[in-house]
């Protein structure tokens, strides 16, 4: 009698223990599935995205602002030169869904999304200053650099942007230089002269246009 009772208890015990083991393994499997199983893919994708939007990258004009021309020139081998971890991996880079770089076909892998703006520059706008009349040129807000050509003017010694001296030669300026302007306000470009100045100073700038985009990088090593 006693022996049979123990047998029933043993069966119940086995059922309970097996059930608990199944539940435990299911938990463990779910936890492992949640964990990052391909850290190399994630690392490579993060590195590619970080490098593409860095302030000193050849693809950007400043941090998170991609130059449209540089993006058009981008291809898989340039990405590899820029970001060694992407070497040999299947890479897909898109801007708002439009493919920029597509090498191999990443099936799965890691995806990184970044917010960027793409800067397109307009056709060059040319404005000239009559050096003899002390005229000014107004450059609109948002323009961060302009080319100032003083070669066809004589007796011009100084070029100022909003009162700040950007070009100076005590004798006479004979140059065609790119000067940096503050993009946060409109700039007024004015010339300073000695004696009778003649000729024209030509200021050329490109007006930037920015568009927000989502940069998506998928890497499958």
């Amino acid at each position: 009698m006693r022996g049979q009772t123990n047998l029933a208890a043993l069966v119940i015990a086995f059922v309970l223990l097996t059930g608990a083991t199944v539940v435990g393994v299911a938990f463990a499997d779910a936890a492992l599935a949640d964990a990052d199983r391909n850290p190399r893919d994630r690392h490579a994708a993060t590195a590619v995205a970080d490098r593409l939007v860095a302030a000193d990258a050849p693809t950007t004009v400043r941090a998170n602002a991609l130059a449209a021309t540089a993006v058009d020139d981008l291809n898989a081998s340039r990405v590899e030169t820029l970001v060694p971890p992407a070497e040999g991996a299947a890479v897909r880079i898109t801007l708002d869904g439009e493919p920029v770089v597509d090498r191999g076909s990443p099936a799965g892998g890691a995806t990184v999304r970044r917010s960027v703006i793409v800067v397109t520059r307009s056709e060059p706008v040319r404005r000239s200053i009559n050096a003899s009349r002390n005229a000014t040129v107004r450059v609109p807000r948002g323009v961060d650099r302009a080319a100032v050509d003083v070669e066809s003017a004589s007796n011009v010694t100084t070029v100022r942007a909003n009162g700040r001296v950007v070009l100076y030669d005590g004798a006479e300026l004979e140059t065609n230089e790119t000067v940096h302007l503050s993009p946060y306000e409109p700039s007024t470009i004015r010339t300073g002269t000695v004696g009778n100045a003649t000729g024209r100073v030509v200021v050329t700038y490109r007006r930037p246009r920015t568009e927000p985009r989502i940069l998506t990088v998928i890497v499958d090593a």
Partner: protein
Amino acid sequence: MPRGQLSLSVVEAAIGVVLVLGVAVGFTVGAAGPTPSTPQLDALAHDTVTVLGTEPTDRGRDARLAALARSNRSFARVREPTRRRIVALLPADVLFRVRTPHGEFGYPRPPTAAVGSATAATRYGPVTIRVWYG
């Protein structure tokens, strides 16, 4: 069981179940850690702060972030354009909330979701952007 005693096997089984479940709970708690979405959210918040911090406003002499932090009037003026800009910048499935010295705007923050955040110091005070999957 004439003596009203629990069978030894059942006691052993109960101890075994507790042991196995303990290991399972250890897996779930120990392996959870930081979810992989948080670095992604931090990156998006950081991107938003960077873009807003280098972008001129339509009027005035500041970047958008500085204009938000400068004064109550400035905040009221640039809040709506900045909100639209952030909506355009972030992916459609990501929501945000911005905190400045002069007030907050954006979506109400959920109590439980994983949140990425980035803070920029402007010369008028800190501006914090929090983002999460909505």
